[in-house]
């Protein structure tokens, strides 16, 4: 058979700067999300900020620390598409939770039709 090439250096390394940047950004974002609590934002603003920082952080970790940004799309897609099932599950369970608490309040507390 063909000679197996000695597996050459296939993976490139990246400049240290990019890691330090991301690292710094993660600290900053964590600080911001902590500030959301510190300043006691409430309601929609709080939740959207929390989610925003959360997804940003998660995205940075995945993309750069876990090198997903540099991986080939075949891998990226295999990893991300299944999340639609989770998204569907989340959406429906949120609706289910609301429905449950509605019936509970309605029949156990409010009552009278």
């Amino acid at each position: 058979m063909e000679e197996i090439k000695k597996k050459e250096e296939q993976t490139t390394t990246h400049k240290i700067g990019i890691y330090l940047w991301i690292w710094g950004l993660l600290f900053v974002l964590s600080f911001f999300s902590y500030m959301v609590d510190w300043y006691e934002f409430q309601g929609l603003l709080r939740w959207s900020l929390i989610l925003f920082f959360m997804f940003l952080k998660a995205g940075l970790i995945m993309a750069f620390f876990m090198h997903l940004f540099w991986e080939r799309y075949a891998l990226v897609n295999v990893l991300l598409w299944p999340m639609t099932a989770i998204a569907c599950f989340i959406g429906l369970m949120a609706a289910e939770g609301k429905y449950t608490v509605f019936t509970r309040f309605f029949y156990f507390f409010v009552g009278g039709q």
Partner: protein
Amino acid sequence: MHVGIIFFLVILGSVLFHIFTPWYWTDIASNWQGMDDTITLTFWVGGGVFVAVCLFMIYCVFKFSYKEGRKVEYKPEDKKLERILTWATTIGVAALLAPGLIIWNQYVNVPKNALEVDVMAWQWGWQYRLPGEDGKLGTTKVVNINDENPFGINPDDPFGQDDIMIQSDVLNLKIDRPVKILLRSVDVLHNWYVPQFRSKMDAVPGVITFYWFEPNKVGEYEVLCAEYCGVGHYAMRGTVIVQDEQNYNQWLNEQETYSELVAKQNKLEIEKNKIVKKIDLN
């Protein structure tokens, strides 16, 4: 050869069995005729496809069984045929789905004039509660349940006072009046199911579930528990009696309300205290 014949007999037998079966659904006694109709429709479409597919297969077995040197078609794909089949199936499926969804829409939208019935399930039995004159059921809680308050009605809920309590597993219903069944359970899952009414829903502890139907045939029906609930599951039966207005009202008047029960109990209490006092005096 004989292989094809046996398979053919199996299909033929299935069809004949379906036509001549003595086992089929009980006569319907509610407004859910639509469910039966959808089942019939599904039988026609689905059964037709089943028979067609199997007959085609049997034909192939007859026609193309092994012969040395037979010329075999080599055709990996036929885009057009596949497209036709996909669309035909999609249309068939959509035709089945549409009536199903329409009826489901009726199923989850309860008519305004429906009579609410509180069905309370426990291991292993049923009891029922009907709204009193105010037409409204009082709120309930499992923790309130005790001998004096068998339904766990919130004692301070004004709507609950005149609720009619039926501490037996026999429920009477008025003919042609929609009922909204409100199900609750004090322990595990149950399901209040009357085959003749076609409809069912689980009773889940911790929440209230509902469904509705309109009984339209006078008679006595058996209630089955249709959700596994422990060793007594198979024996958890009840009865529904559908009656005309007059008999129904008569039955209704014999039942006790919550406040009556409380009053009776208080009286008992007082009497008991008296006796106790007497004994004490002695």
